[in-house]
């Protein structure tokens, strides 16, 4: 039979291993691991420094209102992926420059309700869509438009329903409820699911607490995984991995129902249940707005997962990023509200992936500007008669998906 070449990878250098090498090589391996771990963590702490927390300005567990900001408070937060951001709350505890309660004569006031994304988390106040929109809306409509941002970090629908009267007290001409998938994910939480960390709680403190919990519950592996996830090394690696859209999407597709159920063409029973709960709160707040005689509109802002799904050339068969949008539209309009469908316009923007922080997944300043652009078109497109652009002559046409 014919011979073929079979080269050996056995280096002659590996032939002799002195006994001391057993110890030396193990030690070398251990030292390598220590040096790599320490240097990566140090580098990550330098590149992704964090400082302060918006939580310092928040009242977390007020059972009468849910989470809310302390009126007239100011705090600073430098999130690992974002810039240093000032959070300044007015005397009603809202992140807005607009005066609380009093509306200037002749102006049209839109009050925004929702959670962290409409509040502008991780973004300077002047770069949030709530700050960018008024000038453009005023220009397009020829009237003075004012936006009062009443959105509160981590305020889920139950908490919104609790303090909806405060929103009505801002004398809105239109209430714009900005919904994000996270709001539906945590629809049953009137309070934040976990006690949010204060800025002083560092890696060591958190790790020790988690280790204690792990020992107490006997779930060491879970605790070890969580402690690793608290490290800046994990954060840095995730940041670089998830900067890639296709990598992020692949990880997303692998996610469980809780994380990705709202993207499915056929939502699970758990997600249907969440939608039913949301419907109850939607009915409640829309009825309140109706009885106060205030027009009510709602919009779904896509998160990074939805944006990634929208821009995929070939989507996995079980996913449909428009499913949630359609369900919300049916829900809001069934109670008499107006639904602004911005997904088709958002889909047309280039490279939507750059609008979000890769790990934090909140929109960055570019994302807030993109939301302002699409919301402006949707608000002035004729869906809200009072805001119809001077140039708009016909009812908004449905954009092709």
């Amino acid at each position, binding site marked *: *039979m*014919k*011979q*073929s*070449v*079979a*080269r*050996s*990878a*056995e*280096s*002659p*250098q*590996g*032939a*002799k*291993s002195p006994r001391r*090498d057993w110890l*030396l*090589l193990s030690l*070398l*391996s251990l030292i*390598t*691991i220590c040096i*790599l*771990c320490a240097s990566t963590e140090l580098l990550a702490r330098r590149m992704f420094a964090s400082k302060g927390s918006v939580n310092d300005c928040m009242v977390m567990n007020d059972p009468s209102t849910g989470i809310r900001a302390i009126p007239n408070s100011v705090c600073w937060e430098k999130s690992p992926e974002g810039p240093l951001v000032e959070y300044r709350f007015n005397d009603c505890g809202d992140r807005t420059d607009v005066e609380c309660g009093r509306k200037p004569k002749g102006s049209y006031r839109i009050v925004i309700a929702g959670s962290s994304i409409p509040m502008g988390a991780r973004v300077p106040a002047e770069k949030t869509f709530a700050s960018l929109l008024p000038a453009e809306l005023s220009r397009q409509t020829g009237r003075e438009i004012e936006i009062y941002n009443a959105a509160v970090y981590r305020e889920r629908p139950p908490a919104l329903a609790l303090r909806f009267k405060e929103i009505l007290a801002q004398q809105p001409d239109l209430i714009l409820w900005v919904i994000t998938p996270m709001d539906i994910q945590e629809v049953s939480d009137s309070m934040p699911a976990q006690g949010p960390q204060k800025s002083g709680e560092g890696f060591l403190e958190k790790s020790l607490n988690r280790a204690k919990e792990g020992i107490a519950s006997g779930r060491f592996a879970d605790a070890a*995984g969580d402690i*690793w996830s608290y490290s800046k*090394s*994990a954060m840095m*690696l*995730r940041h670089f*991995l998830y900067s*890639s*859209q*296709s*990598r992020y999407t*692949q*990880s997303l597709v*692998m996610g469980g129902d809780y994380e990705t159920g709202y993207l499915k063409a056929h939502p699970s029973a758990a997600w249907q249940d969440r939608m039913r709960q949301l419907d109850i709160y939607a009915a409640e707040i829309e009825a309140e707005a109706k009885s106060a005689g205030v027009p009510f509109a709602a919009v779904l802002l896509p998160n990074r997962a939805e944006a990634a799904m929208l*821009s*995929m*050339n070939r989507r996995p068969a079980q996913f449909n990023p428009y499913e949630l949008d359609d369900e919300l539209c049916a829900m809001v309009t069934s109670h008499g509200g107006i639904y602004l469908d911005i997904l088709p316009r958002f889909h047309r923007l*280039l*490279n939507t992936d750059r609008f979000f922080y890769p790990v934090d997944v909140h929109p960055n300043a570019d994302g807030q500007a993109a939301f302002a652009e699409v919301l402006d078109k949707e608000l002035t497109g004729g869906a809200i008669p009072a805001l119809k652009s001077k140039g708009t002559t016909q009812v908004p046409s449905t954009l092709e998906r």
Partner: protein
Amino acid sequence: METASFQFIFFGLAAALVSNFSRSRAWRSTVLMTASVVFLALLSNRPLFFVPLAFFLFLGYAGYFLIARGWSKSAVWSILAVLLVYAWLKKYTFLPEGLFIHAPYLTLGLSYIFFRVLHLLIDAGDDTEKRIIGPGAYILYTLNFTTFVSGPIQRYDEFARDQFALAPIPLEWSVVGLQLERIVRGIFKVNVLAMLLGTAQQDALLQISQPFPLTHRLYAAFQIVVLYPFFLYANFSGYIDIVIAIARLMRVRLPENFDRPFSASSFLDFWSRWHITLSTWLKTYVYNPLLLALMRRFSSIALQQFLGVFCFFVTFFLVGLWHGRTSEFIFFGVLQGGGVAVNKLWQLGMARVLGRRSYKDLSKNSAYIAFGRGLTFSWFALTQFWFWADWAQINGLCRALSAVEWVGVWLVIWVCASAVLAAWEWLRAALLSIETVEGPVFLSRYARVIYTTALGLAAYVITVLLNQPAPDIIYKAF
């Protein structure tokens, strides 16, 4: 069990450990057989799933048995039957759709088994010693779990030499260390390097389809072409590293499949460094017999050089064709065969124009080598379009840029590849020239432990702690 996963590696290491409990060949063969059967069973729990594969193996053995028993007339029919059944089971599109089995069945590894079976059939008639391989040895050889999924394509004599040796090949601790290092390197290549390269290429594909400015799309096109060969290399050679190391721990030496392919200075050289076992197989069983037959038929000396060119084309056309059943792979085959044939013609033409000595001198010129290397890489990278994309995707890519822009991208890739690969060769040589009395510092066991630990840590963190899915092994699809 995913190939190149941690489960597969632990499975392989466990099999290797048990195999080394005894040096007897019966014990080692029993362990290999058990491990291979368990590996197959883990692929599916439905016995019917394996029936077509069993039929193919039976057909191959029946043909082999007849030829080995002296029924040489059955050789042609046996080979044709194996070829036809292979094409039928792989659902080659030239066969009528109605003939295919529509129930699900196992085709994983079939392409590699096909080569092993065909090699036995062809060589059975040549074996002057008339030793007949028993059915047990045949099953062990064809279903060996270390070569089952994606090769390497090992010859029976090489397999038998190690597997059935009375005194198995030695396995010192230093060899064990080297194999463990190779496994870690393989995991890193597949789970980290290939994952990152594949991801970057996918991102570039998303970018090129959007109406970005031209410079943005040109850069995306550059990435699409350049990244895939590196991705494929990391993916396939990483898997090969793992299985070669596991087999070596079971005291079987598998043939190498890669030899620094991107160092090749010509396309002919490239195919002696990339998927070596496939190209060697085809050179042995297609190129050599075809050239001999043609030389017997056409005795003109002037024609003989061109017969070689033709045989190269046919051989590497088949290399391309073997990869798939669709028209994209026919075109891929034409590009591989064409590349090799043009390369051979160039060699003949240059030798004629410059004279043999001058051409030999030119071939040693470092700038000539660097540009040859760059051209080889850029040609191979471009031909990969017909390897990973279908016509619809290729059409989309063609429409994303004009023909002139694509040519421009390709020229830039040629120049960049020439410079970067030459720089890499220089750096590698410089690093390996740092030596102690024991040899190059960077190949010492201390250096190896350091970089293996670093690669292992990176692979563990990214695969396990960050739960990042590794790409599938591309060559298991063939």
